[in-house]
């Protein structure tokens, strides 16, 4: 991974650098592409996790999600280069910094737009423009790099199957974050409040839950998770002010296909990752992406609420 992903390409290209190479044993190639699919699924899931929470709870289509990811990557870059913080400490730091930015944006803008979903979408697009441009003015347009510990940038080979250690790390992080979010949602008081507000805001409010505050913290949590995603993707790829644009459409498709629930997003990202990897093996990576888009459109035609609907009601 380390060598091929250092130059700037569409981020999905790097997922499938195995699919193009012809293998002697096709079953080995297939097994490799399944493993690669798992890695893509991990990336999709991490990218979509913050969005799932924000969309699933408040129904907000946050177009600035990709830029939250970008901010996470820049946070790590800044901490490494100006403070000298080790990579593993940068990950929680990215969560805190981007979460705080998300909180501020929610308090100053998003909270006024909850009953105007289309306008939220537009306003957050404006936010993404401002964040990209602001980052460009501060850090410049030249690519930045995130340093990772050397053992993470090696390659693991077992019987002809190979995968970068960092990709395995991303898959583990995806599992860890999923477990964390599940714990917050289903085992804490805050989680009960979130689920109550998701099911019915008015009724929850009449039981004394401060729904505005729940929304604010949920948004901050989602933004923070995007920051963690940025801390991971910044090491996977180069860091640019526009890097978030590449993730936002795929992340949305994952969330919408999944229906806004945590489990839905997990299943959707697994399916999309594996299918994309297998299609890429048969055709090529670009056409695989096209097929995925078409499949998702067809799927949503017949199941507009997605795999598992978060709130039970159709948005």
């Amino acid at each position: 991974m380390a060598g091929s992903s250092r130059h700037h390409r569409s981020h999905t290209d790097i997922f499938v650098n195995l699919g193009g190479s012809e293998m002697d044993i096709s079953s080995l190639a297939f097994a490799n592409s399944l493993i690669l699919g798992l890695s893509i699924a991990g990336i999709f899931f991490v990218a979509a996790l913050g969005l799932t929470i924000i969309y699933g709870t408040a129904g907000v289509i946050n177009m600035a999600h990709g830029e939250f990811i970008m901010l996470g990557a820049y946070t790590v870059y800044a901490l490494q280069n100006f403070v000298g913080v080790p990579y593993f400490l940068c990950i929680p730091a990215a969560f805190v910094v981007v979460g705080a930015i998300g909180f501020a944006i929610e308090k100053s803008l998003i909270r006024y737009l909850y009953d105007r979903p289309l306008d939220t979408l537009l306003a957050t697009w404006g936010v993404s423009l401002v964040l990209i441009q602001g980052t460009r003015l501060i850090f410049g347009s030249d690519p930045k790099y995130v340093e990772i510990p050397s053992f993470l940038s090696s390659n693991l080979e077992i019987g002809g199957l190979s995968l970068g250690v960092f990709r395995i790390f991303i898959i583990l992080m995806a599992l860890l974050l999923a477990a964390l979010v599940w714990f917050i949602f289903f085992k804490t008081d805050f989680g009960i409040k979130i689920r109550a507000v998701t099911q019915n805001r008015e009724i929850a409010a009449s039981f004394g839950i401060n729904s505005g505050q729940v929304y604010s913290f949920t948004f901050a949590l989602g933004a923070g998770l995007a920051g963690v995603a940025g801390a991971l993707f910044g090491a996977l790829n180069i860091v640019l002010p526009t890097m978030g644009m590449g993730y936002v459409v795929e992340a949305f498709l994952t969330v919408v296909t999944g229906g806004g629930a945590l489990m839905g997003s997990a299943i959707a990202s697994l399916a999309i990752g594996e299918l994309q990897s297998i299609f890429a093996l048969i055709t090529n990576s670009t056409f695989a992406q096209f097929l995925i888009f078409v499949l998702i459109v067809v799927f949503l035609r017949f199941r507009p609420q997605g795999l598992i609907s978060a709130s039970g009601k159709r948005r």
Partner: protein
Amino acid sequence: MNQNLYNKKTLQWLFYAAAFGVIGAVPLISDDAFLLNQLAVYGVYGMLAVSISLCWGSGGILNMGQGIAFGLGAYCMAMTMQMQTQAEDTIPPFMLNNGLDSLPHLWQPFQDTTTGIILALLVPTTFYLVFGGIMFTARVSGPFFAIMTLATLSAFATIFVDLQPYTNGVNGISPPGSLNLGETEIDPYSSGAYWFVFGLLVLCTVAAKLINQSRFGLIVRALKDDPERVRFLGYNVAIYETLVYALSGLIAAIAGCCFAVLTQYVSPAQFDVGFSISIVIWAALGGRNSLIWAMFGAFTVQGAQSYVGDQFLNTWILILGFSFILVVRFLPGGFAGLVETVLGRLAKPETETQSENGNLKFSGAKEVAK
């Protein structure tokens, strides 16, 4: 005389006539070929803003993938222009570079100019009818539909890059000659081309305004406010949504054709997500509910972007982003909404003699199409 001037139909038409009169007179003042070409391209952007205003402002269908119709129209037109310059039995040079030795079937119809132009309008509109039909009968709407248009747009961008032998990939198609219609050549750097685009802009805008004022337009605006209620009144909402979406696609396809004629170049950049969303930004800043103000929005934003210069471009985009946020937050009607409010204030002193009910009635009647 207690109605808001903004909503008087006669005044609206007079305003349209005056605005188009000024825009159409530009070649009489300046004969700078480069400037005329640039302004004509703004006309294309104006058409796109009008198309968004029609489906989003009137129908409430936020379409963030208007680049689909725009790009398809532009590609078909560029293919037609490319084939015009090809000698008998030769194929475009880029195909040779990509290992093709005969003209692919996809390109065959474009050998004939009339067929090519018809296809440039028919292909995008048909796609919109089918895609819209599929989506709207499944009752996909609101932000969901916006995301789906965005995904479809990305799919188109991907496939046009991927089909390199047929589309020349990221390099796009740049026909070496300008478009010939019968005996007349449309030189993109001439007042003729300017008036050609201008004529189409007037045609699209007036047609869209007539649609808005028709019975069809009334139902479309009704379903923006409450699709369920329109459905309960016995209308087939999906048909109305699909039609208004396809009509806006047709206007965008015309814009795409003009773009290919004016710039003699198309590339997957026409399918760029950022470009399609900036169309929405133009319409939002100008005023999504007003066709002509949406058009002004396109002129202003694109014009300013060209003239702030490279040095301030970064700052300019920052300002654009901020003003977009502010408009969405405080001024959902855009600049047109501001004009409407101001004119409404002007009309108020005379309505104060009216009863409370009278005032309420007139404030409710502000949905007259502009």
